[in-house]
């Protein structure tokens, strides 16, 4: 049996995007008053563990396409089977996590299905038979409320870390619906040659803790103390545009309007003045700490805790302090 509310589970090489479970949590609360369960959609190859995880996170049934053509993420085979599943299963609502893949698949399938996509939702409420989503626009300076009133399904991607993750119940299970792939390898024009991945790095996208460096770190070697602090805290290394443009650190680390938008529990801004474009990428962090030698830096208007001083003294001292406290 398929349900009225579906959740697309984003995964990369078998590792689920944790924001997918947040979507599953929201889906449960939206589905309950509709007297519906929640169907999780899993696409990939070797997906048994992901399917189990979906049940553990609250899925009532799982629809899975487990196929060799889905080993590497490519929009053509993923969107093709997703479109087919949705057009046949006719859900009212499909949730997912905002990610590079989520945007691809949802927008491509929405075009196939002649419906709309809402992306980066930070709040979703049911109102007059449709879901009203709140989402930041204009780099987070404004909020908009948007709705897909008439067309179905309503396809909504949630901003990572904007919704609580459900508590896992290990050992839960339910109906698994297997679906065959739509495209065969010969009809897929995109071929993946390889991946270039920075080893051992935590990505800023879903990190709970981010330590970011800016102009004040003074050079590529200035990111060493920052990386050490991030490592002790199990967090990711972020950067301001100034540091990226100076070539001190690759672009994947950039937080801000022309970089990533992040929402960690803890954001430590080191040597970052906090221009409005940087704020656009991190202002929704739960706790913001600023370390800067300039007491007038705008970042202090946003921060909860601030240290006015030399980052090259404060950051290593903080790293040592957390090593002691966290037993590392």
């Amino acid at each position: 049996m398929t349900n009225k509310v579906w959740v697309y589970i984003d995964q990369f090489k078998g590792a689920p995007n944790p924001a997918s479970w947040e979507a599953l949590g929201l889906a449960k609360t939206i589905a309950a008053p509709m007297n519906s369960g929640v169907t999780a959609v899993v696409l990939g190859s070797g997906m048994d563990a992901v399917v189990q995880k979906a049940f553990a996170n609250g899925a009532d049934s799982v629809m899975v396409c487990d196929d060799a053509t889905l080993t590497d993420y490519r929009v053509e085979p993923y969107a093709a089977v997703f479109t087919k599943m949705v057009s046949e299963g006719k859900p009212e609502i499909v949730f997912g996590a905002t990610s590079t893949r989520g945007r691809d698949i949802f927008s491509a399938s929405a075009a196939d299905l002649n419906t709309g996509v809402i992306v980066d939702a930070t709040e979703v409420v049911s109102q007059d038979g449709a879901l009203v989503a709140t989402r930041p626009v204009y780099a987070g300076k404004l909020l908009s409320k948007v709705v897909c009133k008439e067309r179905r399904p309503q396809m909504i991607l949630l901003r990572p870390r904007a919704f609580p993750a459900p508590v896992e119940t290990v050992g839960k299970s339910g109906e698994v619906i297997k679906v065959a792939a739509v495209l065969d390898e010969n009809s897929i024009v995109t071929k993946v040659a390889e991946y270039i991945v920075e080893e051992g790095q935590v990505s800023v996208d879903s990190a709970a803790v981010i330590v970011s460096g800016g102009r004040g770190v003074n050079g590529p070697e200035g990111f060493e103390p920052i990386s050490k602090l991030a490592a002790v805290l199990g967090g990711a290394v972020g950067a301001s545009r100034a540091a990226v443009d100076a070539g001190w650190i690759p672009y994947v680390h950039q937080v801000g309007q022309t970089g990533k938008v992040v929402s960690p529990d803890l954001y430590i801004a080191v040597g970052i003045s906090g221009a409005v474009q940087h704020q656009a990428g991190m202002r929704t962090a739960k706790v913001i700490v600023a370390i800067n030698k300039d007491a007038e830096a705008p970042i202090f208007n946003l921060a909860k805790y601030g240290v006015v001083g030399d980052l090259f003294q404060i950051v290593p001292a903080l790293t040592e302090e957390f090593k002691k406290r966290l037993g590392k």
Partner: protein
Amino acid sequence: MNIVACVKQTPDSAAKLQVENNHVSWGDSPLIVNPWDEYAVEESLLLREKFGGKSVAISMGPESAMEALKTCLAVGCDETYLISDPVLKGSDVSSTAYTLAKAIGKIGDVDLALFGRQAIDGDTGLTSSQVARYLGWTLLTYVIKIVEIDPVAKTIKVERMMEEGRQVCTAKLPAVVSVVKGINEPRYPSFMGIRKAAKATIPVWKAADLGLEPSKVGAAGAAVTWMDIYPLPVKETKVEIIQGSSPEEIAAKLADKIMAEKVI
């Protein structure tokens, strides 16, 4: 090789925005080419310089968007077209994508349609993928490097930036490609370019010129509607400055505060 860069005119990223009756305004702040789209325009110029053909910039928007296209001419685009019609007002992602796909079709013989990854006003980042779908072309998003193009075999190799790292893939042309920062360094307009652009007359395409179905464009064709737009509620944060006689003391006090927040 013919390349189309799709650009949007947006308020400047530093503009102070005001909202009144669900209408956003930005005072004296200038309107600019969406910063992400500058990378798309630059890439179209680089590819034209390498392979020949033409670089065409198109924009959908009000008459004022002509200025964004003049900027594209000033940096070196060969042709520009403005898609502007009162019936397009109220377009969402799907009606915009439908309109742009029709415009790209009208230009004809296009190998590559380039987009910035998203526009800094609506911030959806969905339009390029829908354009690809409407055209039936290959879609490659978040491209940080075009590694190679074979204009004869009609193949392309790119590096895509995903959350986990770069995905290197090959695909077939024609393709819709959305680009991210880092792919190139957009050039500044030359003096000659600015003069040329100032004198240029930019053709305007109306809905009828593109053969658009009225039910699919503007507010009528929009799947997603904006009910409300308002400024971000001001978060009252007063920073607590941590002080101490040594870095170690400051670090210990700050660590206390952070631990008490239960965020680690």
